Every structure is written in C-alpha cells, then in structure tokens.
C-alpha cells in the first residue's frame, strides 16, 4: 500500500486524519454525550450528500479543473425529483436513474465545452451554475414537499451497524459511491489518466493518453455525483427547493482540499475527501454541542482550516523543490 506511506504528498491527508481524531477526542472530553458511536454515524448521515458531491469534485480537482455548478445541480435534482413524484406522479424508481443520467449528461456537456472550446472551467461551470439554479425556479419558486411513500420510507429508514448505532440508506449509497470512486481513481486507466492530466496536461497528451475523452468524463463524473448527492439530499430533507444547497460547491472544494487534494491538480486521494468532509461535519457538530457559539463560527473555522491546509501544502511543495528527491516524479505518476 504505497498510498498509505507517509510522504510529503500523503502528509496533508494524514494531518487531516489526525486533526479529525483530535477534534473528535477533544469534543468527547469537553461535552458530555459527545463520545458515542451514534454521534459519529450522525456525521455520516448528515453529510452523506456532501461526501458524494465532494467525491465528484475530487476527480475534477485531480484533473486540474474546478466545478462550480455542483450546488445548483443538487438543487435542480431535488426540484425535479420532488416535482416528478408529487406533481407528475412518476414512479421514483424510474425517475431517479433518469435524474442521475441527466446529471452526468449535464456534466459531460460542460466538459465538452471546456475541452473543445478551451473556455476556462471556472467560467463554463459558472454558467452551468446559473443555468441549473435558473431551471429550478422555472419549475417552481416555492419549496415542494415530498410525501411519496417510498421516499418517505427511505428517509426514515435506519440500518443498524453493529454496536455503534444506525445509519440511513443514504449513508449506504454514499459508501458505495466512495468504494466505486476509490476503485475508479486508483485501479483503472481512467483514474491514472486523470492524475496524469492534472500533473501535466502536455506530457499526458504526448504519452498518448486520451486527454479529451478523460476531461469530458471527469466532468460527467462530477455531474453524476452531484445528481446522486441531489437525490440523497432530496430524500434527506424530503423536499425540493431552488434555494437548496447554496454554497455546497464551497464545502465540496473545502472537503477535497482539507483531505489533501492539491488544487493545481495531480495530487490527492478520494479517501482524503472522506476525512475532509467528516472534518467539516465535526466542526458543525462541535459548534452545535457547545450551544453558546453562533452558527457563523462554522464558516470562520472552516475558512481558517482551509487556510492552514493551503499553507501546509505550499510549504511541503517548497521543501520538496529544495530537496529535489529524484523519486518524486515516480511517486507522482503512481500515487
């Protein structure tokens, strides 16, 4: 397991793990009732959709891009889901696969524009963000509550996990996405191509890697994850609303970066993103448990953490440049 070894590339991911454990332990010492399996599982239940969205974002960041549309795609998905089952009375089991396919297609379309027309990812996904949010309001300005029996059932169902407690079906779905994403990133040709493009697009091209196809696929993966996240969020909140998931793209980016993904691309781990998202969750839980701290401290702490990890990444990068380890090029390609 090369990925588990402590190198300057894995260090930020390990720091995140240590920090998460420290925060959880600190919370357990300070607040009674914090140290329990269920509090940990609640982190997963409340952040399952964030995790799925952040996993998609991780692929985009690994390829050296960015996807600002994910929050809006989540909102649009909840909206279409709610409208579909409540107003049009479509069976949810038919609608959900369609929604997920639609999300992937939306992402692929953005990837196509980014790749073929050479317009910065930032601008294209920004347009995608406006488009998806706008489409929400075209469907309905108000929130639509979901009362469909199957989805309500899914929202309330709890699956016991040993002595720890219980999780929602959403967590199971997120775990499946996580396992698939780890395999996709580290066990397939596609994953290696994503790392290669993020590391150096020109050399990836010269190596004969399918750069165009891979980049379009990366945005399709992100769109897919965003719409899966949207379905999870719709079921979690049992509603569809155009204002849902505002700023989720920031949480997803923060989760990936705190988990060790380098924003210039080429370096990072899907498992790191899990740590990053859990970290965001534990900050929220700590502030909730404290009770005296206002909710806006969450954003300040997340911002400070983000800054800390950026400085850490940067200083490691600089330290690396001065030492010039010859094996570095090798680890980067196989990481």
């Amino acid at each position, binding site marked *: 397991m090369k990925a588990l070894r402590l190198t300057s590339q894995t260090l930020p991911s390990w720091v995140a793990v240590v920090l998460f454990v420290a925060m959880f332990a600190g919370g357990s010492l300070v607040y009674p009732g914090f140290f329990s399996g269920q509090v940990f599982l609640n982190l997963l239940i409340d952040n399952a959709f964030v995790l799925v969205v952040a996993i998609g974002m991780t692929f985009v960041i690994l390829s050296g891009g960015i996807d600002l549309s994910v929050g809006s795609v989540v909102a649009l998905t909840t909206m279409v889901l709610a409208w579909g089952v409540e107003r049009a009375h479509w069976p949810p089991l038919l609608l959900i696969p369609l929604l997920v396919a639609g999300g992937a297609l939306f992402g692929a379309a953005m990837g196509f524009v980014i790749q073929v027309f050479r*317009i910065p990812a930032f601008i294209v996904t920004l*347009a995608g*963000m406006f488009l998806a949010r706008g489409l929400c309001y075209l469907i309905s300005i108000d929130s639509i509550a979901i009362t469909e029996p199957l989805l309500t059932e899914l929202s309330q169902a709890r699956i016991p996990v040993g002595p720890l407690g219980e999780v929602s079906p959403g967590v199971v779905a997120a775990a499946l996405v996580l396992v698939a994403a780890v395999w996709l990133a580290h066990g397939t040709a596609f994953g290696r191509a994503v790392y290669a493009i993020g590391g150096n697009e020109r050399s990836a091209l010269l190596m004969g890697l399918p750069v165009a196809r891979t980049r379009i696929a990366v945005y399709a993966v992100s769109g897919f994850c965003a719409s899966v996240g949207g379905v999870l969020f719709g079921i979690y909140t049992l509603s569809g609303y155009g204002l849902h998931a505002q700023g989720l793209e920031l949480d997803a980016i923060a989760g990936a970066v705190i988990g060790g993904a380098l924003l210039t691309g080429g370096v990072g781990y899907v498992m790191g993103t899990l740590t990053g998202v859990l970290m965001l969750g534990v900050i929220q839980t700590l502030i909730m448990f404290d009770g005296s701290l206002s909710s806006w401290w969450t954003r300040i702490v997340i*911002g400070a953490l*983000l*800054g800390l990890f*950026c*400085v850490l990444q940067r200083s490691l990068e600089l330290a690396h440049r001065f030492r010039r380890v010859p094996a570095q090029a090798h680890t980067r390609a196989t990481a």
Partner: protein
Amino acid sequence: MKLASESVARVAGSMTRSAQFWPAVVLVLLLGINGVLNPNFFVLSWREGHLYGALVDILNRAAPLMAVALGMTVVIATRGIDISVGAVVAISAAVAAALIGGSLKIVDGQQTYVTLTSMPIALVAALGAAALCGLFNGVLVGGVGIQPIIATLILMVAGRGIAQLITGGQIITIYYRPYFFIGGGYLLGLPFSLWLVSALLAIMAWLKHRTALGLFIQASGGNPAAARLSGINARGLLLAVYSFCGFTAGLAGLMISSNVKSADGNNAGLLLELDAILAVTLGGTSLLGGRFSLRGSVLGALIIQTLTTSIYSLGVPPEINLVVKAVVVFAVCLVQSPEARAWLLRRGTAA
C-alpha cells in the same frame, strides 16, 4: 489621401478586432431590444433635481458591480482571481453599519439622527477593513505562493462568517441620513455612486497609461518569469493589486449598504464575485492574465446590469434571470474563443 483611407481602414479593422467590439455590440443590442419593447426606455426626465429614467437607473445599480469589476480586472491581469470580493463587500458593509448604526432620537420634539461613530471614521474603517482583507489575499498569493483561486476561497468562506460576527448575525438597519448619499444621492443630476466609479476609473486609467504600473501589471501577468528577470517586484505588485481589489470591494460595500440602508452579513454582495468575473471576461480581459481593459470591464458590468434590469422591466419572470445570464455568458465566451469560432466555421463549411 492614401494615408487617410489607410488609416480609416486600420481604425475599422482594429475596431472589429478590438476585444471590446463584441461586448459593445451586445450592449447596444440589449439596449436596442429594450428600446423597441419599451418606448419609454430611452426617455430621460428631470425630477426632484436629478435625471430620472431607465438608463440612469441601470447606471446607478451597475455602480457597485463596476467598482468591483475594475478591482477584479487588475487582479485578473496578474493571472490571478479574487473570489472573496462578495464576502469583502459584506464585511465592509457590516463595519460601516456597525460603526454608524445610528438611531432615530427625538430631542426636544425633533427627529435627529445620531451616529455611534462619526461618518468619516466609519467610512475609513470600512474601506480600511476591506483593503486589509485584500492585503490578506495578497500575502497568501504573493507571499506564501498559494494559487489565487484557493487563497481567496479562504476569505470567501470565512468572510461571511466574519461579517455576521460583526453584525451579530442580524441585519443592521442604518438610521443616518447623510450616509444614504453615497449609494442613493445625486450630484449635479447624476447618481453620486456614478461619480465615485468615474473617479475610480479615471485614476486607474491614469495609472495604467501614464505610469509604468500598467506595464508592470501586464508584464507580470503575461510572462511572470520574464517580468521577474526584468526587475519587477512581483511580490509587492501582488500585495498592492489584491489590496486594491479589496478596496474597490469595500467601496461597493458602502454603495450597496447605503443604497439599501442596511447591512446583511449573509446576503450583501452575494454572488457579486461571479458577476464581477463575468463582467471582466465579457469585457475582453483574458482570464489567463496579461493585457487588460478597464473600459471593457465597465462595459461588461453594464451588460450584466442591463440584462438584469431588462428582465425585470420587460415583465419576464425574474426567475429566468439566471437562465438568460447563463446563455449570454456562454454566447459571449463562445464568440471570444478562437477555438469555438474555428469549430463553428468548420461545421458551417462541412454542412
């Protein structure tokens, strides 16, 4: 005579090739559509001692966006980006509102407006806080060497929290009449905010064209290595540029909070960073840095505001605003992308 005709052709050629040609066409088209659909669109009248009309309204509403877009332009020219401006707008508005606050007191049966701190101090503090935010970004980008989008993401995430910290999580209403002049007052018949933006544009244009600063910025954005070798102090330049961008965001924060007479840490300047970046891109400044156009960014801000205003005034449901914006952004980006033009031409000839 030959010289004259040649120069005319050259001017015409450089006009269509100019990065501002297409944005200008879009703006004229937008105004034209408005003029056709709403006969009163171009009518200007004189009411209550100032000009009144849809055009004045658009200019007034576009002023904060223009200010932010101008600051963003120089940041983008250095190959950077500042996505924290929306949060900085909120911080500046929060500082100003918290310091001025103001309350309506009845003294001897007369309504008087009382400030907590005198207005000049509050204004300086708000602008200073905003410039400090910019300096923080500049240190991260220029000093530590973090990529601009992530460096400014930090303040974008934390900034709204800080703004809410200042306002105590509430919307602070301002009860101090003189403050309303900044974003809602009129000087010589025109909105005061427009004068502020014009002054900003004039100073920046002077710095760009009459001093070496413009050249330095374009050089460091166009080719950072060459700029460093030719002795440009890139670090100092980045600190200055990001601080300036923070300052313009602070100015916009004052205009916005003064116009709506309150400061909302959560929603002031929401998505303004995106509009500002759009304005800069629409105006023909490349996100890859290098050459930049101040006029273009002002043009871009006007396009965005005209679009928003026309959607409202034409009775189109405002929900469509975002969709239309997406389509326009997409279209302008496509027109500006050489690859897209080549691709479309190829398709055209193949068909």
